[in-house]
């Protein structure tokens, strides 16, 4: 059933055009990379602040309140450009295990980032950074690095993309 949907998606004329015209195909890649930098960099900075490795003299909320709104905007651009590239080759991606791994690791990274965002107000009120906070932050950083690694492993191991 998924493959059937994938075939419909992949044969859609808008999807075909956007992935085959060099200018739009390149634009999708540029948006996907650039928005990824704007998701991972600021998220990692908040995590590093929670770990005590950055901006120690100011509350975590200062970086968190600035960064999280645009992390989610950048993630929306990242997801949309990623979906359009996926759609252009959906039949190949759907059964591909390296692609499943990339999606799973990215989803986990997003969940841990949400946990950091929710935890920050509470962690700022505590006299020292709770151990739970540091564990969540380090897992978040490692998952984002893992998502990047999984992302480059998809073409390296499967030849797709």
């Amino acid at each position, binding site marked *: 059933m998924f493959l059937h949907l994938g075939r419909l998606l992949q044969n859609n004329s808008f999807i075909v055009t956007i992935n085959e015209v*060099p200018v739009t195909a*390149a634009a999708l*890649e*540029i948006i996907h*990379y*650039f928005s*990824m*930098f*704007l*998701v*991972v*960099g*600021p998220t*990692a*900075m908040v995590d*590093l*602040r929670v770990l005590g*490795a*950055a*901006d120690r003299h*100011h509350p975590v909320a*200062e*970086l968190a*309140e*600035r*960064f999280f*709104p*645009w992390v989610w905007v950048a993630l929306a651009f990242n997801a949309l450009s990623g979906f359009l590239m996926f759609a252009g080759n959906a039949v190949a991606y759907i059964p591909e295990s390296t692609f499943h791994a990339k999606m799973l690791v990215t989803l986990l990274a997003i969940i841990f980032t949400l946990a950091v965002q929710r935890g920050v107000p509470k962690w700022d009120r505590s006299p020292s950074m709770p151990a739970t906070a540091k564990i969540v932050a380090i897992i978040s950083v490692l998952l*984002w*690095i893992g998502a*990047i*690694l999984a*992302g*480059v*492993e998809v073409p*390296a*191991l499967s030849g797709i993309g």
Partner: protein
Amino acid sequence: MVGEVVNFGNWLQNTSWALAIATSDWAYPFVQATHFTGLSLWIGTSVAVDLSLLGVGNRRQPPSRLSDALFLWNWIGFAIAIAGGFLLFSVSAATYLVNAAFLTKLGLLIPLAVILHVAVQKRVRGWGQMPAMPAVAKLAGLAELLLWLSVATAAVSIPYLA
């Protein structure tokens, strides 16, 4: 001149470390991931300051304070991105050295963007002490943001021109 550059490229891509990356099953994606992780830190924190100069986000926290908070990891990210980028380049140096998109990226866009970035980092405290963010600060922030986007455009164009 062109011959010497190509000779240098051939020498580089035949060094033991370049051959090791090129012939290994797992090394190349790890080096790619290193490059992108460094870029996430570098571009993510650089563009953060650019956006704050443009007035995006919390205005109570001045751009200079944000720039100071990000300074260390900004340059750590740069070092990681350069190290990873150099290794990726060395794997097929001779091909990159005759690619117009690569030459534009490395020879023109990155130097311009880095010079502007350093200028912004040096000026940001002064701009923060003025009653309102001066137009030149906003212009510098916008220009740096657009320059990094053009670096990404040149990078993505490399295989299209190969």
